[in-house]
């Protein structure tokens, strides 16, 4: 057997292993208990977190999954994209070897199949701890099937009635497809089928410049695919600060992504087996011909087919299930968490909201979702990470805000690493060290933001962070440098007094 053939076989084995864990064929649903303390619908990040926490507390828990355990995050989202990003970064580093004082390989051949094989292996490994058997061992009754509410305290799973004291709906969100004439006929990729394409397309049009669109556009460009990204806003990542969004734009451009901002994709047609997209920019029409189109960037809450009406749970198609600050739905017994009810559609937000539900539903807790401090990150190169308020939000609320900005090009380790694009910006309430929020743009921004998140949750201000000695040299030191800038800027109180006292001596 050739090496390639071995690789193919291993890759198929990896996928089989994952499916054995997350969607085992021939799975027999357990015999239902008379009454569950917590019934969880949806086994994505929120559902898994809630089921495990509740089971650990000794509650009788049922977990119902329609498709695959782990949800989008494990199977089609966070994990597989990050695996691919790592490979793409490797190729980028090889090409930029001279920047790091190394000799670039003479001939860089991109092996897309190897990248996908690694992705499948990574996914299989992560799935080991999320397997149905593993969950069962943790005391959770795992049901595969579609759940429908049949009343205020019961659901039907493929003909079996399950009754609950409390329930959690955590069905996540589904890809929302832009209504572009001709797109459906021409065919397109979404994150659900992207990882099954056999070969790297020669060219790819990415529609939508949100986090996932930017990440994947950069990845494919780094694999050597001619990549075009069309985004209807004037800047990528519309939620992020302008400077951060601009740096992502610069990063994509450096990797050769053809950027079309302020651009609508008006129509798609097929010509000679290729896809021709019509782009409209300020009233001007241009066409581009590509082999593949990637879209489905927007997401809509997955509320269909649950018979929510039967349980008296209010919802709408756009914002999903209606919840209060305690994540209660309009049915007192039923809660919701994650993408199906929250605006921030991130894995960590889903998990954190699930923890709140377990506390509130089972432990008489009064934890509010609005008090969560949740950082997020877009894993482009450089990465963009954020936590807390944006400057504009603070100003809208009438909070005087000041930003301490440390360019990464002032950070010794970033210079040593040749990774000095980006910044740490920490926003404080002016006149105090109280941290309102922060944005980090850096190669490892996702790792760096956690310290600021920790400080915010613990109530540490920049004055306290100044006292936290950091390992030197590290890129994370940028955060302490911001704290030092704050201390230098702070109206000196006791130092003034000390200096005056010293002069008097």
């Amino acid at each position, binding site marked *: 057997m050739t090496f390639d053939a071995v690789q193919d076989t291993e890759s198929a084995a990896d996928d089989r292993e994952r499916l054995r864990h997350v969607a085992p064929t021939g799975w027999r649903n357990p015999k239902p208990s008379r009454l569950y303390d917590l019934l969880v619908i949806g086994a994505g990040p929120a559902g898994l977190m809630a089921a495990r926490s509740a089971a650990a507390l000794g509650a009788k828990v049922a977990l119902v999954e329609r498709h695959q355990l782990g949800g989008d995050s494990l199977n089609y989202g966070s994990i597989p994209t990050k695996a691919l990003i790592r490979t793409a970064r490797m190729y980028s580093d090889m090409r930029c070897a001279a920047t790091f004082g190394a000799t670039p390989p003479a001939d860089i051949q991109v092996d897309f199949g190897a990248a996908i094989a690694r992705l499948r292996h990574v996914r299989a490994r992560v799935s080991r701890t999320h397997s149905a058997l593993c969950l069962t061992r943790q005391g959770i009754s795992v049901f595969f099937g579609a759940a429908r509410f049949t009343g205020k305290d019961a659901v039907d799973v493929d003909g079996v009635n399950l009754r609950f004291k409390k329930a959690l709906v955590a069905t996540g969100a589904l890809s929302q497809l832009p209504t572009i004439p001709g797109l459906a006929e021409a065919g397109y990729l979404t994150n659900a089928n992207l990882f099954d394409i056999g070969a790297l397309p020669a060219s790819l049009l990415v529609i939508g410049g949100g986090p996932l669109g930017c990440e994947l556009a950069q990845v494919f460009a780094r694999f050597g695919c001619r990549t075009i990204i069309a985004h209807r806003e004037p800047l990528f990542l519309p939620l992020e600060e302008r400077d951060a969004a601009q740096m992502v734009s610069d990063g994509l451009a450096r990797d050769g992504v053809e950027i079309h901002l*302020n651009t609508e994709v008006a129509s798609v047609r097929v010509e000679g087996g290729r896809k021709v997209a019509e782009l409209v920019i300020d*009233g*001007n029409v241009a066409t581009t011909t590509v082999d593949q189109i990637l879209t489905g960037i927007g997401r809509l809450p997955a509320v269909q087919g649950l018979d929510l009406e039967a349980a008296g749970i209010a919802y709408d198609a756009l914002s999903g299930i209606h919840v209060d600050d305690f994540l209660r739905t309009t049915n007192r017994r039923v809660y919701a968490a994650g993408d199906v009810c929250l605006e921030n559609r991130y894995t960590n937000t889903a998990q954190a909201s699930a923890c709140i539900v377990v506390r509130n539903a089972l432990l008489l807790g009064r934890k509010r979702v609005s008090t969560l401090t949740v950082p997020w990150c877009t894993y482009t190169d450089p990465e963009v990470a954020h936590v807390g308020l944006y400057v504009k939000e603070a*100003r809208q609320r009438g909070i005087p805000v000041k930003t301490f900005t440390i360019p990464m090009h002032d950070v010794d380790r970033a210079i040593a690493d*040749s990774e*000095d694009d980006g910044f740490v910006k920490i926003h404080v309430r*002016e006149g105090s060290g109280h941290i309102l929020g922060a944005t980090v743009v850096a190669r490892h921004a996702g790792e760096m933001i956690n310290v600021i998140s920790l400080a915010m949750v613990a109530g540490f201000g920049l004055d306290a962070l100044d006292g936290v000695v950091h390992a030197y040299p590290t890129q994370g030191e940028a955060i302490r440098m911001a704290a030092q800038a704050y201390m230098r*800027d702070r109206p000196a109180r006791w130092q003034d007094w000390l200096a005056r006292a010293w002069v008097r001596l």
Partner: protein
Amino acid sequence: MPSLFKSTPLAPPGKAPGVMAPGDEAMLDSLQHAAFDYFLDRTNLSNGLVADTSRASSPSSIAAVGFALSGYPVGVERGWIGRVSAVDRVLCALRFFSQSDQSGTTTATGFRGFYFHFLDIETGRRVWQSELSSIDTALLIAGMLTAAEYFDAESAAETELRHLADALYRRVDWHWAQREGGAVSQGWKPECGFLNYGWDGYNEALLLYVLGLGSPTHPLTDASFEAWTLTYQWENIYGHDYLYAGPLFVHQFSHAWIDFRGIRDQFMREKGIDYFENSRRATLVQRDYAIRNPRGFTGYGQDRWGLSAGDGPSVEPQAVEGRRQAFYGYAARGVPWGPDDGTIAGASTLASIVFAPEIALPAVRAMVAARAGGHGDWVRASGFNETAHGPVAGGWTSEGEFALDQGLTVLMVENFRSGLLWRLLRDSVAIRTGLQRAGFQGGWLATKASG
């Protein structure tokens, strides 16, 4: 906390003791005079339109006309043009705009009192599918109001000049350009309506808001200025606290006309400084960036800084410190986040003399001295780049001259030397009203116009 703000005396910055070295006066006069000559040489005398650049087949930019109209009072004061001749030139432009096609069609000159960014210099009609530009119309109107303040004689010509300038200002429908009651749109096109960009974040639109708020006919609402300032970012970078914006021209354009020393809006009152001091700090940040020179460009340093909007090399990428450096052609460059390809806009360094003469004058002297013959082409060209391999040794220099650089030089050097533009516009009812509606108080605004 004691206020950092000290009210600045209204004397021209160049008159402060110890600022000028021997030879500076002659150097500045030569640079300013050469810049003024651009407008004498590059104006179509049949319609007053001014070429955007000195390059062949350049269209006119309405902003260039605005700078020309503002520059004529300087030329008259300095004896570089006669008063009658200057009035003729201003009247020619005002009559053209007054009679221009305002239908807003794809080949019109303007719409609702605004004008398309680029016009055919002969026919005065829209070219390049350019946008109906709110900021460039503001720069044009600022020029008209400046001329109207200066040419105050009772003669028929100067009376007509003032009448036309006032009518053209009143014709601009600023309110229409305000999107959804908030910030002003950057522009409009007959092909697609309003552009998807609003004026937000701190930038040169300060002048636009002042003129729009001061309009007696179609004013912006108070909410427009609030919407704009909501996106301000007050940052501490390299140890300087300032209202952040990357490119230098953003911190300069509005200051060519309006004397921001000692007057403050709500935001600046909170911060304890004024916009003039803010521009000084932004200038210091530019120099601090060039000293750090994070991307390793040739020449950058203590006396070689000034990233702004302007021309740059459009050559193939080349290796710089091991990385592949692209070059961006005409672009708005800024610090500290770029874009930066090693291109300096010398005119922006020169214009910095009003804010920070102690660092700007040495830089200008060095740029003038660095070039053979000392003719100041690094200061006069729209950009130069010592990193990019140009056709001749010593890097790349932008060919010819750009009107906006020359206009900024004429006005800023004049403000530095005599404060003429600031003095004229301090008496403008439109400017005063606009500033007051934007919440500016104190300083010269608290005293009556000198009439």
